[in-house]
């Protein structure tokens, strides 16, 4: 689990470079990728469905990014984008197409719904966290 998260961190770091992030931000952003995958695997190990696990992972990476953005005074997107990348259902897209080519529409549809649900759960997680942060920061002011 830790090793997998470490691979994910490296992948996120490479993405950070591809998105042209510079300086210490890149280390923080890649840690976000590690956090997101670790939380995903942790949720998976408690027998959650992939959709629920993705939700937990996306919530944790969004919270992480909001905190880091405030500490290091950088836009939240910089960290969220790198942290979210490993969660984006690239495998879902592939397996959907694979099953369509194979001719088993049953499996294709189940993969397709899985992909859409994954994207949806990531979206809801980000919406929730950033709305709640708005509430919290407003209260402080």
């Amino acid at each position: 689990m830790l090793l997998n998260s470490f691979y994910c961190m490296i992948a996120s770091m490479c993405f950070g470079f591809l998105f042209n992030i510079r300086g210490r931000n890149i280390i923080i952003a890649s840690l976000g990728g590690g956090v997101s995958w670790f939380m995903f695997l942790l949720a998976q190990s408690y027998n959650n469905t992939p959709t629920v696990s993705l939700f937990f992972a996306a919530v944790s990476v969004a919270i992480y990014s909001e905190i880091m953005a405030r500490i290091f005074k950088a836009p939240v997107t910089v960290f969220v984008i790198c942290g979210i990348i490993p969660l984006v259902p690239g495998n879902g897209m592939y397996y959907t197409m694979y099953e369509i080519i194979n001719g088993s529409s049953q499996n294709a549809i189940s993969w397709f719904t899985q992909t859409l649900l994954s994207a949806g759960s990531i979206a809801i997680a980000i919406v929730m966290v950033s709305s709640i942060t708005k509430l919290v920061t407003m209260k402080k002011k």
Partner: protein
Amino acid sequence: MDTNKILDLAIDAGKIMLENGGETYRVEETMLRISKALGLQHADCYATPTVLMLNCKDKSGNNISAVKRIVSRTFNLDKIVKINELSRSIEKEHMDVDDVLGELENIRNMPTYSRKVKIILAAFAAGAFTLVFGGNFQDALTALLVGAVVQNIIMFLSAFKVADFFIDIVGGAIAALLALIAYKLGIVQHYDKIIIGGIMLLVPGLAITNAIRDTISGDLVSGISRAVEAFIIAVGIAVGTGITLKIWVIVWGGI
């Protein structure tokens, strides 16, 4: 105070942000913050992923406005960080128009990572994702090659300003082709993990994130257009890999 100059400056800052992957609300906020900090009173603006509009009143009460069309969009999050910092420091450090202009020019010409570095990093990203999704080290080594080739294709085709949809189709197709060839040669066992590692380079992570963030901040037009962009990219990737898989099955009678 030169109203025209300030207007140009603010909209240029917005343009750089929008072209490099900033969210719509951040772009609008930045343009307004810059124009207010430099002394424009009644500024108002509207931004979508393809157009920027900024309007203000000069001293005698005439309306002055500027419109910028955004044609190309890439990722350079560092520029967004820098412009964000700049817009906040104008007010704090009492910078004047010329200071800001020079600073903006610096940000515009900031160096990006070189081609070689990007290719190497893309290769490592693809390799790492192959490991994450359950491939072994042999798969990951092949994915290094796949990632490098896919990134090369992305950069090669974007230089010609081809539609993103086409780049995704070609990228997906090549990733699948290389993985299948390696599988056929007996080098690797999990061709699917390699393909997934390769297409993660094309996946619309930035479009999804920005679509969500735009929608919740109330920029519905931008949110929907970015969501459609993300969906089209996903379809493009799937179609690309699908074409290769189908042709491969037809030619060899199976994978």
